[in-house]
């Protein structure tokens, strides 16, 4: 069982939360030239081994939306912040300095 820290409720068990999608899905691109970029955004995933910025919801709790920095091999969670705060990795999963 994993423990996830909700920014509003504190540490809670994993079963209260639901994974929604990779953060990269949320960066919309506008304009008619952006068709391919948007197709890639919706359908492609970097799916690299390492840290990912993910969107989770505290479904069986406060129902708040979280941005979670989680490792997809060790399941270590480095950060969990309210959605809307700045991401700490870019869309390729590289840590920003």
């Amino acid at each position, binding site marked *: 069982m*994993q423990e996830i820290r909700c920014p509003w409720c504190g540490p809670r068990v994993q079963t209260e939360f639901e*994974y929604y999608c*990779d953060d990269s899905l949320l960066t919309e691109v506008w304009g008619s030239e952006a068709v391919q970029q948007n197709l890639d955004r919706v*359908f492609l*995933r970097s799916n690299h*081994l390492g840290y990912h910025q*993910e969107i989770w919801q505290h479904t069986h709790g406060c129902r708040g939306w979280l941005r979670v920095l989680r490792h*997809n091999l060790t399941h270590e969670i480095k950060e969990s912040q309210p959605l809307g705060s700045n991401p700490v990795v870019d869309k390729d999963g590289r840590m920003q300095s």
Partner: protein
Amino acid sequence: MRNYSSYALIKNALTGNTRWTPAWRNARPRKNYEVIIIGGGGHGLATAYYLAKNHGITDVAVLDKGWIGGGNTGRNTTIIRSDYLLEENAGLYDFSLGLWAGLSRELNFNLMFSERGAVTLAHSEAHLNQLARLANAMLLRGVNAELLTREEVLKEIPVLDGGAGTRWPVEGAFRQPEAGTARHDAVVWGYARAADSLGVDIVEQCEVVGMNMEKGRIKGVQTSQGVIAADKVAIVVAGHTSTVAALAGLTLPVESHLLQAMVSEPIKPVLDTVVMSMAYDGYVSQTNKGEIVMGAELDGYPSYSQRGNLPRIEDCVRYTLTMFPSFSGLRLMRSWAGINDMTMDGSPLIGPTPVDGLYINGGWCYGGFKTIPGSGWAFADTLAHDRAHRLVEPYRLDRFNTGHTINENGHGPLPQHH
């Protein structure tokens, strides 16, 4: 290849079983090959076998980073069926089911394919309507399917608790009589032995760490056992399709998730078919050894860990015990998790890539084990002729760009819901 037979069993018994030879050679990689297949699982080995057998291409190496049978082939629930609604899926899955029936004889290896049928339980009128639609779609294509009444279900599966007192009483069921199960290890061992005897090199403990490319064309691979050149390279690595494709600079419509399954201690025969349910997302069968095998839903978040979490095990056991309360005295013997490469429409990715000479067969979601023979057959044809075989053409990599997704369940591009 020495034939396995009753005669061979007796002869070797008389000599104290000291004269058996290994089922395949422990090959060292040569400097170059016509075709390199990355991944020695069911699909990779089947591809190599059919390349050699159907197309006479024997200058083939199958590279695996671990050992044969140590990946997803050994991490599934061995259910084989072809009850799919969409025409694209029906073609490949049913062709595959047809191959399973004669495979033990063809490979001279007992795959223990057991045509025991698969039953999907309906718990409401809406479920029954949905299953009737599926059965009709299958019958129109010439694939056998039948609907069972509640009485028939309860009579044929006496151990099932589907009566009025249960949480969701059984209303009826759908059955594919030709569906079944097979011995998972035997499938890879059988294909490895048959491919090896036709001249294919099977190289274990050989991890691919890079791709050699020149002007958009594949030239070979870098491995833990050195550089190997090849005209064609195929990525057939269930569970790591994205990471291996990334070595060639490709990004795929794949997210890797965990799927768990588990077995109980063995008991005497009590369940002679595969049981699935429209209400409980679980699937239950009994192995020839007597263990009750149970499969669960995805754990729900991307992971490469091959390590599941307890909540899903509890869900799975709960579903099973609701259907089969008499199993409550059994002890769980083992549980395991496989990495499912989930695509954005729930269907696999098969075919050429933007890199010349580089091919992919992956993204099998839940459908990998049952499709091993058909996928190997059609993918070998694809490799041999440099164009997608009719059965796998719909699974081309660029279908998301053109809007030709193959979405059996109608969910959007959120793979954890497929």
